[in-house]
């Protein structure tokens, strides 16, 4: 049991830091600081995606032959840490983290040839069409229907919680192709080349934080080619489960982001007077709370590093669910701490000041501008991608005791 700290790692860290200090445009930096969700502002995020692509660093977790970096665990962590320290916008997960790895694993050669490069280059952005109004935690009950018709499918129904569908040009989705057998059977996984097929309509949903991040997508006799199918017809559930492994397991470690929230909270606390004297940063209760939070984030980091290194922990069937549960609940705790530091200065609704490129000054500090939207948005983390109730059900099934 040993961690090798190769001397060249520090050189690597310096290289990464140097790149992050020079490559992003001011708008990209601003978008990073104003990210109040796992989904960064779209335009600047994709700009940054393309800069990282040019550098060859856009998909560290992909196999080298498909455009990955081939970095060691430590390098990936150093990259993630420097990334977060520079407050850069996280890349959007749908293409790079979900459909890309899925196609690498089980796509046809044709699909790989067609879709992987535009994902890496940031030319394509994929929306994820899974949930439906009546199929949330019970995803397998979905009813959006695809009828075969010649070489095509005709789709009717709707999808909801389709993040950034209004920015996407492609979409992957689950459709019902059969009502026979168990509900998990009869589902098919489809890639849609376009998101503006005739009969498709996208309606953004305004969230509790005031932003239209999610969408509803309606399908009325939408004709799409069957060649977009991944896997067999009616076998989409196993495809989706495969993909969920990527979604929940996380190609990228989350702990550096969480640790960065703590750093930002500490920095803000240093400037905030405590009602009990001195600054909040010096207050014993604040130290007790942020200490516990940081310790828990550190444990997540250990868990992630063990997993990336190939430790048996990652082969536990409950691994993806544990990772999702721990991560999502820590995001929420970190954001609560942030709003506590902001106090009443977090109560102003400042949608315009939060827009990248806005010339409206925030009312408090930039920290106070983002803390409350981040808190509000993070309430979703325990709901989406399989609610934490569903995750705990799955984890419990692996505790048999014998």
């Amino acid at each position: 049991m040993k961690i090798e700290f190769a001397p060249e790692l520090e050189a690597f860290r310096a290289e990464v830091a140097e790149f992050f200090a020079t490559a992003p445009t001011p708008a990209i930096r601003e978008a990073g600081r104003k990210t109040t969700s796992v989904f960064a502002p779209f335009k600047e995020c994709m700009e940054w995606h393309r800069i990282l692509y040019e550098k060859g660093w856009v998909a560290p977790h992909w196999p080298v032959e498909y455009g990955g970096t081939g970095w060691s665990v430590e390098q990936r962590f150093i990259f993630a840490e420097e990334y977060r320290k520079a407050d850069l916008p996280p890349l959007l997960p749908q293409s790079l983290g979900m459909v890309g790895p899925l196609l690498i694993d089980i796509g046809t050669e044709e699909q790989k040839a067609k879709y992987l490069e535009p994902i890496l280059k940031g030319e394509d952005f994929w929306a994820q069409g899974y949930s439906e109004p009546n199929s949330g935690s019970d995803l397998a009950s979905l009813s959006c229907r695809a009828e075969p018709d010649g070489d095509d499918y005709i789709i009717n129904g709707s999808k909801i919680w389709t993040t950034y569908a209004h920015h996407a040009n492609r979409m992957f989705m689950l459709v019902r192709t059969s009502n026979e057998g168990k509900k998990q059977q009869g589902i098919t996984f489809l890639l849609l080349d376009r998101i503006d097929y005739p009969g498709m309509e996208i309606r953004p949903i305004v969230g509790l934080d005031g932003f239209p991040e999610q969408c509803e997508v309606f399908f009325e006799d939408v004709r799409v080619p069957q060649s977009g199918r991944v896997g067999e017809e009616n076998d989409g559930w196993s495809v989706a489960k495969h993909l969920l492994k990527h979604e929940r397991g996380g190609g990228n470690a989350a702990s550096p982001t969480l640790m960065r929230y703590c750093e930002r909270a500490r920095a803000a606390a240093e400037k905030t007077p405590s009602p009990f004297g001195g600054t909040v940063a010096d207050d014993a209760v604040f130290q007790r709370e942020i200490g516990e939070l940081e310790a828990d984030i550190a444990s997540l980091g250990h868990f992630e590093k063990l997993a990336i290194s190939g430790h048996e922990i990652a082969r536990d069937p409950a691994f993806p669910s544990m990772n999702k549960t721990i991560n999502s609940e820590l995001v929420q705790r970190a954001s609560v701490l942030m709003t506590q530091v902001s106090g009443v200065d977090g109560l102003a609704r400042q949608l315009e000041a939060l827009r990248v490129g806005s010339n409206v000054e925030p009312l408090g500090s930039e920290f106070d501008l983002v803390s409350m939207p981040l808190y509000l948005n993070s309430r979703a983390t325990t709901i989406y991608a399989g609610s934490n109730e569903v995750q705990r059900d799955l984890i419990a099934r692996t505790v048999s005791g014998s």
Partner: protein
Amino acid sequence: MDFSFTDEQQMLRDGVGKFLEKSYDFDARQKLVNSDAPWSADAWQQFAEFGLLALPFSEEQGGLGGSISDCVAFAELFGRHLVIEPYLGSVMLAGSALAQSDPATAQEWVEKIVSGEAVVAFAFEEGHGTASPELVAMTAQGGGDSACLTGEKRLVHGGADADAIVVLARKGEGGPPAFYLVEAGADGLDARAYTTIDGRSAANVSFNDVAATELEASEEAVEKIIADAIIVQSAEAVGAMGALVAMTGEYAHTRKQFGVPIATFQAVAHRLADMKIAYTKARATLIYTTALAESGAATPRDIAILKGQVGKLGRAVGEAAIQTHGGVGMTDELSVSHYHKRLLACDTTFGDHAYHFRKVGMG
């Protein structure tokens, strides 16, 4: 010992409740929040007709001589309907500050408040929040009718639209906290208006050598006015909690997943149980503390317990309501998140639960 609302209070609740059901449903409320108007003049007029604006003032001052439990009686309904009008600021805080002051100007303003002719804002919070009057740092120069204010107040509800502002500031360097009256449009007064996350019109108000009239107030009076406001704000929060418990229970019995209502999942059922426990505890403390205050026996510790409990339990109820609603709980369209944001705002103003619990612990 009686902890129930009187028949009169129940009648007031019924009347206000019916009006709000009819004219202040969630859609109407959202239309109002998203309009240019800072609040509804119609609703305000209706509050005047119900006597709410006159309630806490003595009969000599044109008021109804109501008690704190009268205010609690209808404030729960304000919470249930997420009312955005500046009742707390104009009536409970600025109004009470004016009412206990001698100067004739103050009494004129009380009359205007009572009649609904004027709305007066109350400026208290400073950077990041001001948990109690003893923490107010802004300092007035001079006194009487030639006082002068410099500094900034934040989260002043109605601060950009009120006809006047009552400001809590120190009476000279190191002096006790006292109230000062500033009229709208005064030189050196600048308000930056915004809407709060819970839909209220507010402003950060900067004072640059602004002329003000000092209002007579003992330190006890200042404490008492803030304490009463905390009780009424807590009643609003408890009303919001009750609404969330009811709507979340209903949703859990209606919404189906895996072929059954989600209320049949024990994780959801236990969350509903915890919501009800939290609401019941908060409401018991609200009612008992109100009765204590009515008897003149509420101590600062009692108020801190109320503020802390309602703040903590309200947050927990809001978060549980969103989690139970799932995706739709995250939308601006449904009322759930708006209740939660109101509860967050109630927790955050006048010191959050962490502050008040620590005060309780300091003994």
